[in-house]
């Protein structure tokens, strides 16, 4: 079987190029995805036709821009099953979303309070909480990751001890960008809620890859980026339950988020405007909505099945290579389309440079996950990550290239 979606590749212009004389095999989707023609066209159409500033304008273009922008917000709300489009705040990406919620909730934290996170967080869902803990005197605790290769996932038994009534916030990733673990997010939210903790989900790796419903998850906040889900750069979303957003102080201030200003002070609009100071990335929001349309036309169930199948196949083919150490969940556990590995003596950067000679785009390094890498005793790994346009043939190309690299470095 060639691919679950044999017909999608023509939609993605960037896939059709050669790299170092070989057809591009793009396996760096965990870092960012390529964009379908439909998304690029939506951006062009916006700039060619509707382009204008939003909200404060009453002329035709400004109304069209505002309508496109707010329609994009409604599209996002529908995509993640938010109750209300005021729960959708447009931001630059996951990192900014986490910063806003960390600083916002930080206003209510005090010494003795606990912020709980996990050992498998991306720096973007880790350092902001470290900063908030430092600023407020709250304690930051980590749910351990089990297994020498991280194959055991989060230590759910430890949660019983860790989830005390002192825990005010539990921030965790839906899918680990390093291990490919799919965390039991609904269960984690339920257990957090039982002790009165608010939950913040980093959905950077799950959005656009798996069906996602904030009502079913039961989370309080959720953060994601557009660029990893077929969308443009510079746009992302902070979802928050409306009452929580409306109770939170703004982060950045300026034009567009105020009801009134005088030389003494200002009053804030409610969410989402409260968190969107200044001119927003309107084209980005429009492009993100187009990406969501594209993804839902394909179907998120099918994309997830496709990702999972490719990952299973990749794990099988990579395991055939001598000296291969593969991280993350073993067969039978929930696992996403992400496979990190260490290849014998070859350093990850050398592996990536060699693979690049074969036209293969891999990522090598700490994957913004330094503490976990240190715990696993690896300075870095190479990572292949899949998306809807990847094929089994591409994994065969990868396996052949890695075997060659292994021989070179062992020989």
């Amino acid at each position, binding site marked *: 079987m060639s691919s679950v979606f044999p017909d999608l590749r023509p939609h993605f212009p960037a896939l059709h190029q050669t790299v170092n004389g070989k057809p591009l095999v793009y396996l760096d989707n965990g870092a960012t995805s390529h964009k379908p023609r439909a998304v690029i066209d939506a951006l062009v159409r916006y700039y060619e036709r509707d382009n204008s500033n939003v*909200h*404060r304008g*009453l002329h035709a273009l400004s*109304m069209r821009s*505002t309508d496109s922008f707010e329609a994009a917000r409604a599209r996002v709300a529908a995509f993640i099953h938010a109750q209300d489009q005021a729960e959708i705040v447009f931001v630059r990406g996951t990192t900014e979303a986490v910063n806003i919620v960390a600083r916002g909730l930080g206003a209510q934290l005090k010494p003795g309070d606990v912020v709980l996170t996990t050992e498998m967080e991306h720096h973007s869902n880790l350092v902001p909480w470290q900063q908030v803990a430092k600023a407020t005197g709250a304690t930051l605790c980590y749910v351990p990751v089990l297994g020498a290769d991280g194959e055991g996932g989060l230590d759910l038994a430890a949660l019983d001890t860790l989830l005390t009534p002192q825990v005010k916030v539990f921030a965790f990733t839906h899918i680990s960008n390093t291990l490919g673990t799919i965390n039991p997010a609904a269960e984690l939210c339920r257990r957090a809620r039982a002790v009165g903790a608010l939950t913040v989900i980093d959905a950077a790796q799950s959005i656009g890859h798996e069906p996602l419903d904030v009502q079913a998850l039961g989370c309080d906040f959720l953060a994601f980026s557009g660029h990893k889900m077929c969308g443009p750069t510079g746009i992302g979303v902070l979802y928050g339950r409306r009452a929580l957003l409306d109770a939170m102080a703004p982060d950045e201030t300026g034009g567009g988020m*105020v*009801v*009134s200003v005088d030389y003494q002070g200002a009053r804030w*609009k409610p969410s989402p405007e409260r968190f969107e100071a200044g001119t927003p990335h309107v084209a980005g929001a429009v492009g993100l909505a187009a990406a969501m349309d594209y993804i839902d036309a394909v179907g998120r169930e099918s994309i997830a099945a496709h990702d999972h199948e490719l990952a299973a196949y990749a794990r099988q083919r990579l395991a055939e290579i001598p000296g291969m150490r593969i991280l993350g969940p073993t067969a039978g556990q929930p696992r996403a389309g992400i496979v990190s590995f260490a290849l014998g003596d070859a350093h990850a950067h050398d592996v990536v440079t060699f693979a690049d000679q074969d036209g293969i785009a891999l990522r090598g390094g700490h994957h913004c996950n330094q503490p976990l890498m240190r715990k696993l005793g690896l300075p870095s790994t190479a990572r292949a990550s899949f998306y809807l346009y990847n094929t089994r043939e591409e994994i065969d190309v990868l396996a052949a290239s890695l075997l060659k690299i292994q021989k070179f470095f062992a020989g």
Partner: protein
Amino acid sequence: MSDLTDLYQAVILDHNKRPRNRGRLPTATRVASGDNPTCGDNCTVYLRMEGDRIAEISFDGSGCAISQASASFMTTQVKGRTADEATARFAEFKDIVTTGRQPEDFSEVAAFAGVHAFPARIKCATLSWHAAIDALKQPDQPLQS
């Protein structure tokens, strides 16, 4: 420009130039304000109730011709009515400015149906109505000076 001039010419310029029930109502026992942060328009509505009925009403504030005319018109429409009747009147008004449907009875409102062609201005037309409904929900207390 004909839709627009029609809209303004009819009731709107009239109410705008000669507003009814404009100014602070000293005998008011309920007050509520609303503003439209998009334009900076604002409107305060003053009510005096007799039982469940609006005995007196006035408005104050600044804004565009549509918001001023609509406020003036609103006062003429709800005066003497009960809270429920006023709320029903607002529902009909909102429907008319949003959809543009020409009402059979409720004749003077027909001019406002033209607002529906200018969606960004619908909020201007409903601002004073929202303030009035807010005021209706408040407990009676003497106006603070």
